[in-house]
């Protein structure tokens, strides 16, 4: 499924933006839909490390490892999210896909300033969701190759 084909609209702060809500390590995370190229099952991608779709290689990124959260992406609901931003491609495994949420960027809450570590680069903010919150992932950080094997292993 090409998610971008289903989505149109701008990303100005006032107008609604679409986020794909997923879970990883029992945390709700949001991905800006504009960066999403597709959703695949483990069966669809087969036994390859880096999924290739339409001749584009989506480098596998271990997001759970990068975030130091439990690696629970092997169940029947696991999906592979294909991401692309500024001609950089990557793919992440998520435990579940909750669905799409439309939300004005202006209503994304900032991460409290008491969070002072590198996580300030990991998230673009928070969204109130049901009785919980969703952390909006910074796709640029997710796709940054230099970060792989760096922060994720530093404790």
């Amino acid at each position, binding site marked *: 499924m090409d998610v971008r084909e289903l989505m149109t609209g701008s990303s100005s702060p006032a107008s609604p933006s679409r986020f794909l809500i997923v879970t990883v390590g029992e*945390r709700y995370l949001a991905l800006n839909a504009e960066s999403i190229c597709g959703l695949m099952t483990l069966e669809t991608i087969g036994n390859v490390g880096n999924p290739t779709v339409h001749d584009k290689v989506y480098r596998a990124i271990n997001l759970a490892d990068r975030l130091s959260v439990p690696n629970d992406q092997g169940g029947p609901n696991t999906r592979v999210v294909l991401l692309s931003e500024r001609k950089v491609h990557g793919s992440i495994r998520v435990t579940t896909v909750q669905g799409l949420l439309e939300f004005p960027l202006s209503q994304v809450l900032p991460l409290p300033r*008491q969070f002072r570590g590198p996580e300030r680069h990991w998230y673009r903010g928070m969204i109130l969701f049901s*009785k919980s919150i969703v952390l909006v992932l910074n796709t640029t950080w997710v796709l940054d190759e230099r970060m792989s094997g760096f922060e994720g292993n530093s404790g």
Partner: protein
Amino acid sequence: MLRTGQKHQRETSRQSWQLLVFSVGGRRLAVKTVDVSGISQWNESIPVAGRTPFVTAVVRQWQTVLPVFDLAASLHLTVQGSSPLCLKVRHPLGEMAMRIDEEIPVLHTFDPAALQTYQGDDLPAEGSYTNGLDEIPILSVSRLGSTV
């Protein structure tokens, strides 16, 4: 949710400090009431992956999201009781929540002339006072998360 310290209740001079004495893992600590913004029942916290020591979760209270400072973990203690409380403090970076024991905090009027230097180095303190055999540190809220 507060009770007044009976032994220490007396005429309040203009220079006196109003303290809130609470417990974490059975250990008694104090904080100035001017640094306290509220006490309520503890709502389940929401973990946030990150690297900031002892700030690894938030609590949601209606439309407000507060960062949680894990004071118990910073002191290598475990919060006691099945109905812990949420102590909200005024931190310079914004309101912050801490999970404390279910024991109801006590208000205490304190004469700053009796302020001692806190002997420990396990938490940021404005000083301490002696209560019986106990040394009770007065938490420096503004330095929480920066020096521990």
